């Protein structure tokens, strides 16, 4: 696969990204390296894995990390109930060694995402989401899988990958990952998109949305993200939710009033909602969110929500 093909496939999957991201994805693919994606929550890290699965026409196997995640949840577990039943059924069998041997066969093995991904007949995309939430022990355990594409199961031995998955690891940087893990991965840092790119995303995901509203929302969200007063920065998914909500309510413009009514779709805490007031009404970095490229310095001759250049001739 070359750059142009990958770009075409990502476009097909309606994923808006710049050339740098496409290059990084290609590097990871070509080298067969896992891709470690870092960035703030909501910048679209998980989406990269989903889109790559669609673009490469592969199944997506997802492992959601959390504190306390261990091998039995991530790699494999023996089906104890089935083993116990089997023991009781075959209690009178003459050869106890054979019985013991049979208890550790594929029949009793419960595959978890990691094992599932390397034992799949066709290569899959393996998403190890929020790796920073897992414990350091688990991170160390992943090293063998990521570098050798094999895992060791004490009762079975070494299980080598039948097919090499494309591995995507995501991290919100809540803790630093080990050097050893980083060294085994290609690295990508995702930032929030700029206004233009966010408008393109809205256009791609919600093709029926009014262009003018999309620009207004993208600008407003950009202002919210730039504000130090907002603690939980809005994600791209929340931008899409906000646009959808405004559209569903028949609001064609993002006025302070409509923003107030629907702000819950983009900000999820009362402190942030309070702090958003000045930002949305023009006190933020971008000034008013009328969507025009002109400068806003509060002396530009119109009230917010009543921008002559933004509003269509119907005077709304």
């Amino acid at each position, binding site marked *: 696969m*070359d*750059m142009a093909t990958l770009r075409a496939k990502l476009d097909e999957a309606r994923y808006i990204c710049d*050339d*740098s991201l496409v*290059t*990084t994805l*290609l*590097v*990871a693919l*070509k*080298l067969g*390296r896992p891709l*470690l994606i*870092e960035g703030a929550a909501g910048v679209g890290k998980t989406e990269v894995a989903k889109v790559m699965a669609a673009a490469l026409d592969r199944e997506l196997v997802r492992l959601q990390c959390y*504190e*306390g995640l261990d091998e039995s949840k991530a790699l494999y577990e023996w089906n*104890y109930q089935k083993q*116990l039943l089997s023991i009781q059924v075959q209690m009178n069998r003459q050869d106890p060694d054979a019985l013991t041997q049979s208890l550790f066969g594929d029949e009793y093995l419960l595959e978890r995402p990691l094992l599932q991904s390397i034992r799949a007949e066709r290569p899959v995309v393996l998403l190890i989401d929020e790796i920073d939430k897992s*414990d*350091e*022990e688990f991170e160390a355990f992943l090293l063998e899988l990521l570098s050798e594409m094999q895992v060791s199961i004490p009762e079975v031995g070494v299980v080598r990958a039948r097919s090499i998955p494309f591995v995507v690891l995501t991290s919100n*940087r*809540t*803790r630093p990952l080990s*050097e050893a893990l*980083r*060294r085994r*991965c*290609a*690295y*990508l*840092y995702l930032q929030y998109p700029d206004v233009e790119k966010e408008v393109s995303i809205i256009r791609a995901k919600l093709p029926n949305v009014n262009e003018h509203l999309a620009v207004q929302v993208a600008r407003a969200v950009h202002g919210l993200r730039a504000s*130090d007063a907002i603690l939980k920065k809005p994600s791209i998914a929340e931008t899409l939710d906000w646009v959808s909500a405004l559209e569903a309510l028949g609001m064609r413009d993002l006025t302070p009033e409509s923003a107030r009514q629907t702000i819950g779709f983009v900000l999820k805490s009362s402190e942030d909602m309070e702090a958003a007031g000045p930002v949305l009404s023009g006190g933020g970095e971008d000034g008013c969110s009328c969507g025009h490229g002109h400068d806003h310095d509060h002396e530009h001759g119109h009230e917010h929500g009543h921008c002559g250049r933004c509003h269509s001739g119907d005077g709304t």
Partner: protein
Amino acid sequence: MSVYLEKLAEFSSLLRQEGLAVGLQETADACEILSCLDLTDRETVRSALSAVYAKSREEQAAFQRAFDGFFVSAERRDALRRQHEAEARELARRREEAQRELQVNGQPMELREDLEEVYIRMGQEKREQLHQMLERTRGTMGRSPDKLYGNFIRSVFMRFLLEQQMVMEDAAVDCEETDPDLALLYRDISLFKDADVPRAAALIAAISRQLDAELSRQRQGRGHSGTLDFKRTIRRGLETGGAFYRLSYRRKRRRRRRLVLLCDVSGSMLQFSEFALRFIKSMSEVAESSAAFLFSEQVRPVDPFALQNMDAFRDYVRSSGLYGRGTDLGAALEALCTRRPAPLGPSVTLLILSDTKTIDLPRAARTLLEARRQAGKVLWLNPIPARKWPYVRSIQTMASLCQMVPCSTLDELARACRKLMK
């Protein structure tokens, strides 16, 4: 291909000098990936190499600098060549000018080339100082010029060189353009402007959350390092027909240390102490109990965890009469060691936040020894950058008596807090 390999090997070596952990694997990967990319597209090459070489956001910033310096575009190369030629002409002109200006008894002064360049880069004020000195010593120079002006000139020049070096070593200078948060993380706390403080506070809050999460993970993720718990194992075994599939272990009870903070709040230290306290306060799990003392010329006990609002901390310091005074570390440590009930003890970590600048250094050193004897561990957080330590006598003295950690930036402060957790 061998040319590419050679170039890539040089580039890898440059990245190593920039602090990136680049091994043979990375160079091999870079070589492999370049063979299937369009090498004429500079940005594609940049992104591809960045993915291979840079493994964190911080490393990406260093990579961008190294890439721009190493893989120079054709236009940039021409521009640089023209610039270098112009600079060389200018240097030659100024060198001649310097030789005319620096004369002893009508003869050009014999200066090394590098010192001559230092003179050329000197500001007008420093040059005038030098000329005034030469004027004053004109009469005696004839007798023993080397001995008379040699030391002075060298000291003036070396100081200037040192200042230049310090500016160049300031990592934030290069980070500034790429990422403001990253720049703040690596900027010297003493260089913070008022406008930076809210952003720094937000950054500290974010890092503190990280530290807190790491701590809780450390506590919970200990696994089964304890001994086998027979009772629980047997009880759990009943669920699986008496087979002990799940073993239970006794968790070791982790004793947290007591922490005693001694904060220097004299004028220049206030900002640093405020930031450091924010970090320490947020790490609620570090210590099971803590006591804090603020000092300048006097010492006052204060409860850092009661100061929820850090603005109140500043107000408290100003109203307490400690602010704007000199620093007497010896008196503060003595008060701490003789205080009853004794705040120090074998299970206590004494954390000193100070730049070591104090009156009566010998007394401070003596009392620090006593404090070290009483406390289980003494850790000193010093806001002066480590590169300046060799030039500050008090730091050398104190660092030889206890473990001293440089904390001139927020990043170093966070590292120091991680050290505290261990």
